[in-house]
């Protein structure tokens, strides 16, 4: 079957649902691994309960022959491991979809049109465990879970007509060192699961996946992982953070890697300490970073402002989650834009940048550090829960394209002639000395100050110093605006132009492409740089489109307001803030509706 050529296209959406702790995630991860080894593109979407145990988990996998831009619309295959999982997540299934359920756990209600496969997963898994019982020694046997996931994997692979060889190979690699009986148990479980489906298929519908030749090296990785690796690639050598969903795994990832890169990582006592430590490390010359989510960003507000005022580079990744206050901590949202751009008493400069895809997480992370260094100010990097946990198959980033910026340092001449840390320059950027540099000593401060950094509140001084600091953003806007947005489609002939930011890029592209394929002229401007906003590009784009649509995942349409405050353009807002990403259909329908108005 793996000989199949790529002339057949695959586009299947598989959804796994079950109780938290039941193995949904590991089955999902296994499936992803198998399918991407077939050359297929993967795009996952996961939701978790806010509780440790007892909630339902959902792991959706879209498998596709080419570039995959969203989690898709209807669900082709639902694998329900529990009744609650079925109840909570069967919505969104196609009417003619396929349901594979654990028949040991429950019996689903009737639904005509649907194809159903019952699979006694526990029974089968236990049976396989018993089969090797005598060969496994006591203590190991006790802790040996019955291979439920593998039974499920076999069943699923067969259902979508995927080859079992990769899974066999995987099982050998993974369980090899646990001994032959364990390997055998799992391989048997795989086949038993597959066979059970085989027996039921008969005339029943099955979707097919068709392997694709792999041409370029590919990764299967999620947004947070790419963000963390991007930070290391950008030269981040200090991290301080405080655990918070859905940002914690950035810190957990870096905790393993940072010492290998000669850097330091601290779990701070809270987010206030985390940002303080990062500012300290930055003052001391290190590229530093923290990652958090809404509640933590709230606590960092005071010191991000200090960073802006004292002109210190620092990267703050905000992995947005659902809801105000504690809200919906395991769900997604784009609701922190206001806090990111406006969250400061009085005003000091900061740059805000948003990652828009798993691949882009790497580059946005690199950009964030470069911008922080170049403009000596805090950079807030926006991502979100959906993007953070989204596993995708992406091409290997071309590391030779990574360019690193370092902060402007004083020359030895400047250091020996009475160094002015806050020299009033044309770009707004002044040379920054680092402790250890003789002649460079100055007192970094959040108080208004003169060029030497001595406190001063003379109105004229205050005016010039503030202008200097904000001039940095003007310099940025002038010099590199164009690399911070992406244009899809042709605005000159567009009836609808979409302007958006962040993790929605893929789904918006997919919807717009679909509309274009159907003959509707739709263009799409996607901003990576949020502050300063690419104002000229937006104005030009808007001027060329008949109507502007700004879709975003929050309540009040924060990005739309931000765009309007900066550009004064007219637009139609489409917002949703219920913890879920957009589905392509939702956006497509909005486009069609706007066209019809």
């Amino acid at each position: 079957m793996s000989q199949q050529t790529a002339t057949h296209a695959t586009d299947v959406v598989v959804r796994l649902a079950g109780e938290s702790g039941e193995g949904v995630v590991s089955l999902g991860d296994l499936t992803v691994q198998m399918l991407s080894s077939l050359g297929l593109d993967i795009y996952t979407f996961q939701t978790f309960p806010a509780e440790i145990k007892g909630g339902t988990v959902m792991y959706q996998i879209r498998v596709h022959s080419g570039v995959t831009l969203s989690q898709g619309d209807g669900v082709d295959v639902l694998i329900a491991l529990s009744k609650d999982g079925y109840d909570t997540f069967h919505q969104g299934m196609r009417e003619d979809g396929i349901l594979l359920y654990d028949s040991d756990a429950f019996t689903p209600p009737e639904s005509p049109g649907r194809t159903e496969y019952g699979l006694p997963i526990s029974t089968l898994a236990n049976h396989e465990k018993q089969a090797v019982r005598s060969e496994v020694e006591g203590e190991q046997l006790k802790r040996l879970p019955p291979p439920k996931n593998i039974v499920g994997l076999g069943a699923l692979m067969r259902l979508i007509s995927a080859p079992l060889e990769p899974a066999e190979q995987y099982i050998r690699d993974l369980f090899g060192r646990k001994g032959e009986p364990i390997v055998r148990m799992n391989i048997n479980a795989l086949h038993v699961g597959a066979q059970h489906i085989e027996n039921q298929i008969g005339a029943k519908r099955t979707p097919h996946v068709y392997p694709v030749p792999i041409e370029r090296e590919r990764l299967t990785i999620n947004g947070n992982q790419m963000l963390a690796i991007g930070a290391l690639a950008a030269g981040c050598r200090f991290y301080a953070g405080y655990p918070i969903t859905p940002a914690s795994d950035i810190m957990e990832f870096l905790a393993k890697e940072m010492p290998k890169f000669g850097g330091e990582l601290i779990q701070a006592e809270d987010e206030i300490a985390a940002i303080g430590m990062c500012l300290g490390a930055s003052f001391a010359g290190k590229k530093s970073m923290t990652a958090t989510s809404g509640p933590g960003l709230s606590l960092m507000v005071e010191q991000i402002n200090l960073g802006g005022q004292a002109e210190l580079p620092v990267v703050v990744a905000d992995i947005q989650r659902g809801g105000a206050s504690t809200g919906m901590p395991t769900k997604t949202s784009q609701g922190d834009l206001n806090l990111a751009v406006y969250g400061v008493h009085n005003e000091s400069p900061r740059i805000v940048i948003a990652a828009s895809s798993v691949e882009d997480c790497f580059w946005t992370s690199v950009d964030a550090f470069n911008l922080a260094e170049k403009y000596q100010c805090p950079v807030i990097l926006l991502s979100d829960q959906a993007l953070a946990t989204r596993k995708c198959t992406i091409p290997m980033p071309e590391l030779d394209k990574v360019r690193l910026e370092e902060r402007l340092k004083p020359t030895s001449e400047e250091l020996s002639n009475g160094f002015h840390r806050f020299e009033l320059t044309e770009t707004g950027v002044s040379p920054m000395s680092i402790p250890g540099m003789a002649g460079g000593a100055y007192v970094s401060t959040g108080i208004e100050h003169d060029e030497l950094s001595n406190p001063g509140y003379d109105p004229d001084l205050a005016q010039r110093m503030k202008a200097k600091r904000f001039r940095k953003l003007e310099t940025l806007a002038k010099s590199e605006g164009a690399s911070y947005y992406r244009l899809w489609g042709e605005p000159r002939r567009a009836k609808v132009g979409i302007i958006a930011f962040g993790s929605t890029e893929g789904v918006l592209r997919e919807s717009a492409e679909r509309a274009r394929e159907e003959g509707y002229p739709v263009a799409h401007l996607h901003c990576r740089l949020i502050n300063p906003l690419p104002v000229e590009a937006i104005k030009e784009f808007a001027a060329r489109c008949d109507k502007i649509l700004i879709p975003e995942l929050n309540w009040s349409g924060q990005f739309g307001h931000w765009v309007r405050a900066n550009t004064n353009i007219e637009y139609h807002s489409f917002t949703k803030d219920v913890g879920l990403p957009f589905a392509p259909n939702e956006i497509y329908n909005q486009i069609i509706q706007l066209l019809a108005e």
Partner: protein
Amino acid sequence: MPETAVSQQQYAPKDYKSSLKPIWCPGCGDFGVLNALYKAMSICGLSPEKTVIVSGIGCSSRLPGFVTTYGFHSVHGRALTIATGIKVSRPDLNVVVVGGDGDGYSIGAGHLPHTARRNPDITYLIMNNNVYGLTKGQVSPTSMVPMASVQANLDPKRWKTTPYGMTEDTINPIAMAIAYDISFVARGFSYRPNQLTEIIVAGLQHKGFALIDAFSPCPTFNQDQTDDFYKERTYDVPEDHDPTDRVKAFELALRTDGYPIGVIYRNDLKHSIMEEQAALKSRFAGQPSGSVSALLHRFV
């Protein structure tokens, strides 16, 4: 105080004096602390360009401006966090933190036990005037005023925010520091300048986190805890006190017959976070694992 921050060159106390004139009121205890710090730095031979003085906000937190080293005058209560970032990322620097009782024990109180856990090689010098100076005379956690319930007089007086007497107790920062296992805990007094200098020298030389709480009267807003008040009530830590005995140190800190001046507690066995981080890094050193490309290939 790392070797790397000590200079071959000799520095006199006045070499650490910046051109900025202190803005403190005449008679402010902070002058004495500043002078003791100049002297201590000179004795230790600290290289100005390898030293950073970090502070929060308050009258006392203005100190970094009056010294020729690098400095960071940050925000209220967060100096320790910033100093930790500096020290952990640059163990070659000497890092000193200065500030007020409000800055350190009120808004900043949450960072103390955690800095103690990390035990970075930082010397923290608190100028304790038992009042909020810069904001003009509100009550501080170290303020000492009768309780509201035992005040006979209804006349508004004393601290501006507790005009009829305090509704809360005074903290004992030394006892707290010992419970945190801060690895060097001492008390100084700005009107005992030589002793204060010695204590600061010892703090700078201590490998690990050192807390020095120095009484530093505020004649402008605290007319109770004056220099005389403390002159009468301070005495030397008893000769036979063993600062490595934590329970005894705690007992000494609780004494109500006055304030012992000197080193009250020390724990020289405690690990520092810089040592821990260095141990971690050295174990990976030489291994080619710190490669972005290798990391990415893990996901292929």
